[in-house]
C-alpha cells in the first residue's frame, strides 16, 4: 500500500499568506491607509470634537462621527483586497489553496491594521483635545473601553468590506458598492433618523447601531447634561403673555440661584436612552453583537470564495 502524500494544511497556508500580505503592506503601499486614517480622524475631531463626552448633543454627534471614521477606515482597508487578486486566488485554489486559510490570513492581517488604526484614532483624539472618559464601564480604564469599541467597529466594517470584496469580481464593482454600504450604515444607525416599522428592525444589522450604543454607554450619555432644551427655552424667552415674559423671568431666576446645571442634568436624565445605559452588561452585549456580525461576514466570505472556480473565463 502506497503512503498517502499529504500537503500543508490550513494553518501553514495561513502563515504563508500572512507573510505575503505583510510584505505587500510594505511594497504595495497598503501602509497608506494608516496616515489616511489619521488625517480623517483629525478632520472629524477638529469639527465635532470639543463637546464629545461633555453634553448629550455633543456626545451623540461626536460619537456618530467617530463611528463613521471607524467604519470608513475598516471599509477602505479591505474593500479591494480580495477582488483585486481574484484571478490569482483562483489559480492558487487550483494548486491546493484552502479558502478558509486565505480568509484567516486576511483576518489576522486586517486585525493588525485595525489595531494600528484604533491606536492612531485614539491618539489623534487625544491630541485634538477630545476628552475620552477616564473611567471605563467594563474595565476601569475608559480609554481601553473606548479603544475596544473603536477597534470592534473598524474590524467588523473591515470584515464586511472583505465579504463584499469576496463576492464581487472586480474592483470597480467593489468601489461602487462601498458608498452604498456606508450610506446604509449611516441611515440605519438609529441616531439621527427616526426609524419605524421594518426600518427599525434593519438597524440591528448595522455596525453603526451597535457601535453608537457602545460608545454612548461608555461616554455615559444618560448621565450627561442636555443643553438643547435650555437653548430652546432661551430662544422663546421673550414670549409675552399679557405684558409679562414669564419664561425669561424663570430662566433668569434659575441662573441667579445656580439651578441651571441642575436643570440641564435633570433634562438629560429625562432624555435618557435605555440602549445607552452605562452598564457593563450593556456594553459587553454591544461588543458581542459586533463580534457576531463579524463572524457572519467571515463565514459569507469563505463560502463566496469557495465558488471561485465558477467564475467564467
Amino acid at each position, binding site marked *: 500500500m502506497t503512503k*498517502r*502524500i*499529504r*500537503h*500543508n*494544511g490550513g494553518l*501553514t*497556508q495561513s502563515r*504563508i499568506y500572512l*507573510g*505575503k500580505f505583510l*510584505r*505587500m503592506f510594505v*511594497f*504595495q503601499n497598503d501602509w497608506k491607509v494608516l496616515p489616511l486614517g489619521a488625517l480623517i480622524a483629525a478632520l472629524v475631531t477638529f469639527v465635532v470634537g470639543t463637546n464629545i463626552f461633555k453634553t448629550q448633543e455633543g456626545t451623540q454627534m461626536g460619537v456618530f462621527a467617530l463611528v463613521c471614521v471607524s467604519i470608513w477606515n475598516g471599509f477602505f482597508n479591505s474593500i479591494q483586497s480580495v477582488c483585486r*487578486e481574484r*484571478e*490569482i486566488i*483562483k*489559480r*492558487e485554489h*487550483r*494548486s*491546493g*489553496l484552502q479558502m478558509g486559510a486565505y480568509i484567516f490570513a486576511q483576518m489576522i492581517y486586517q486585525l493588525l491594521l485595525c489595531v494600528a488604526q484604533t491606536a492612531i484614532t485614539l491618539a489623534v483624539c487625544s491630541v485634538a483635545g477630545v476628552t475620552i472618559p477616564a473611567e471605563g464601564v467594563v474595565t476601569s480604564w475608559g480609554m481601553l473601553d473606548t479603544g475596544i469599541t473603536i477597534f470592534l467597529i473598524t474590524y467588523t466594517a473591515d470584515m464586511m468590506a472583505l465579504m463584499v470584496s469576496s463576492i464581487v469580481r472586480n474592483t470597480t464593482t467593489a468601489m461602487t458598492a462601498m458608498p452604498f454600504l456606508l450610506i446604509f450604515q449611516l441611515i440605519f444607525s438609529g441616531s439621527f433618523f427616526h426609524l419605524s416599522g*421594518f426600518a427599525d428592525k434593519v438597524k440591528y444589522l448595522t455596525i453603526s447601531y451597535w457601535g453608537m450604543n457602545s460608545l454612548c454607554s461608555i461616554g455615559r450619555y444618560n448621565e450627561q447634561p442636555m443643553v438643547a432644551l435650555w437653548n430652546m427655552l432661551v430662544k422663546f424667552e421673550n414670549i409675552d403673555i399679557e405684558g409679562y415674559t414669564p419664561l425669561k423671568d424663570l430662566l433668569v431666576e434659575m441662573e441667579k440661584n445656580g439651578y441651571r446645571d441642575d436643570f440641564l442634568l435633570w433634562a438629560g436624565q429625562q432624555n435618557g436612552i435605555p440602549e445607552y445605559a452605562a452598564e457593563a452588561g450593556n456594553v459587553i452585549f454591544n461588543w458581542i453583537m459586533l463580534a457576531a456580525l463579524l463572524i457572519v461576514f467571515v463565514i459569507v466570505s469563505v463560502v463566496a470564495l469557495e465558488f471561485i*472556480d465558477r467564475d467564467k*473565463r
Partner: protein
Amino acid sequence: MAVFQTYLSSQLRSIFLWALFSIGLWKLSEKLNWKHRWMAWVPGLRYMALGNSLDMAREGIVCGVVEILIDIFYLVTSNYTIQNENLSVALDLAVLILIVMLYVYRIRFFIRLIRVFGLKTRWILLWLIAEWIPVLILGFGKQYQPKDLPIQEEWVAGTSPAEIAGAEGVHSLTASETGLSVDLYERTAKDFLKKRYLLKDISLDIPNGSLVMLLGGSGSGKTTLVNAIIGYEKAKARMTLNGADIYRDYKRMKYRIGFVPQKNLIRGNDTVIRTVDDAALLRLPRGTKIRARRNRVHEVLDLLGLSAGAEGLVTKKSGGQLRRISIAMELVSDPELFVLDEPDSGLDGVIAREIFTKLREIADEGKIVIVITHTPDRVIDLFDKVIVLARDSGRVGRLAFYGSPQEAREFFGKDSMEGIVMSVNRKEEGGDGLADHFIASYAALAASEGGVTA
C-alpha cells in the same frame, strides 16, 4: 364613464404602438434572416429572436424575460390591488429596476442594429424618441440593407454535434499504465437550460517525456480540453496519469499536475524568490525539509534563468521573465504533467523560443508537457507530438489529428502548422472549412492503426 374612456384610449394607444413596432420588426426580420418571423409579434420572444440574429443571444434572452416580467406586473396590478404596502413598494422598485434594465438592453440592441446596417450613431436619438419609427424605416426602406450581418451561430452552437462516421470509435479500451491517457466521450455545459457540447470523442495516449503542441482555431476547445485533462472542469471521460485516475483522486492528483494559465497571475509586489518559495510551500508535500525546498526553488530558478534577479520585485520584471516566474511557480513542485496555456503570448520570437527551449528541457526530464500556442511554426521543431482540435459543422470541438509534426504535415497536406489550423477553420474565418473531413479521416486512420476500437 370618463374613467372607462381614458382606460380604453390608453389601451388602444398601447395596442397601436405595439402593432407599429411589430409590423416594422416583422419586415425587418426578413432582412435579418429570422427563422421564425412570427416572433416579431410576440412580446418577449421578439427580443430573443432579435438577439439571436444580432449575435447577442444572451442579451436577447435577458431582455425578453424582463419584458415578459414587466407585462405580467402590469397585468396583475391593473386587475388586482396589492394590499400590503411594503410589498407594493418593493414591487414598484423591482419594476423600476426592470424598466431601466430593459431600456439599457434595448439601447444595446439598437446600437448593434445601427452598426449592422452601417448607419450613423445619431439614429439612436430617433430610437430614444419612439422606437417604432426607426424599426419601420429600416424594415420598409429598400435602401436600408444589412451590411455586416453577424453569423447566427451562438444560439445553436454545440447543441447538435455533426454526425461524423467513425468518430465515436476512437475511444481506447484500456488506459495506458505509463504516460497520460485521455479518453473523453463528451464535455457538455448547460447554457440557459440548453445542453451544449463543447468537446466530443477525443482519445489519445501521450508517453512520458513528450512535448506536445495543442493546436486549433479560436473556439475549437483547446482550453476546455486542457481543463478537462487536468481535472479542473470534469468531462464525461477517463483521464489517467501513469496509471492513476485523475478524476477519481483529483485532490491528490492536482499536486502532480502543473497548469500555467495564459495570464501572468502573480502578485507583483513580492520578490521573485519569495513568490516561488511560497508556491513551493503550497504545492510540495508536508514535511519537505526546508533545505530540500530551498534547493528545489534554486534549481528551478536556475533552470529558468531567474536566479540573477531573484531578490527583485516581480512587478519590475519583463514580460518574458514574468512568464518564466509563472512557469517556475508550477514547476517547483516537480509535476508529472505540465500544461501551459499560450506561454508565448505577447512575447517576441527570441524570448518565446527561449521559453520553449526550457520546456523542451523539462520534457526531457521525463515529464509530459502540453502547450497551447497560436504561433506554432517558430518552435515546432522542439515538439514531439501535435494535437489538432477542430470545430465540426455543429460547432463542437473534436480531435482532427494526433501524431508527430511530420505526420501532421502529411495528413493535412500542408507544410506549416498555421496552414493546418487554417485547413480546419471555417470558411467564414478565412479557413478551408474541412474540419468534418479531417475529423472523419483521422477517426478512420486511428481505427485502422489499431489500439482503438471501431
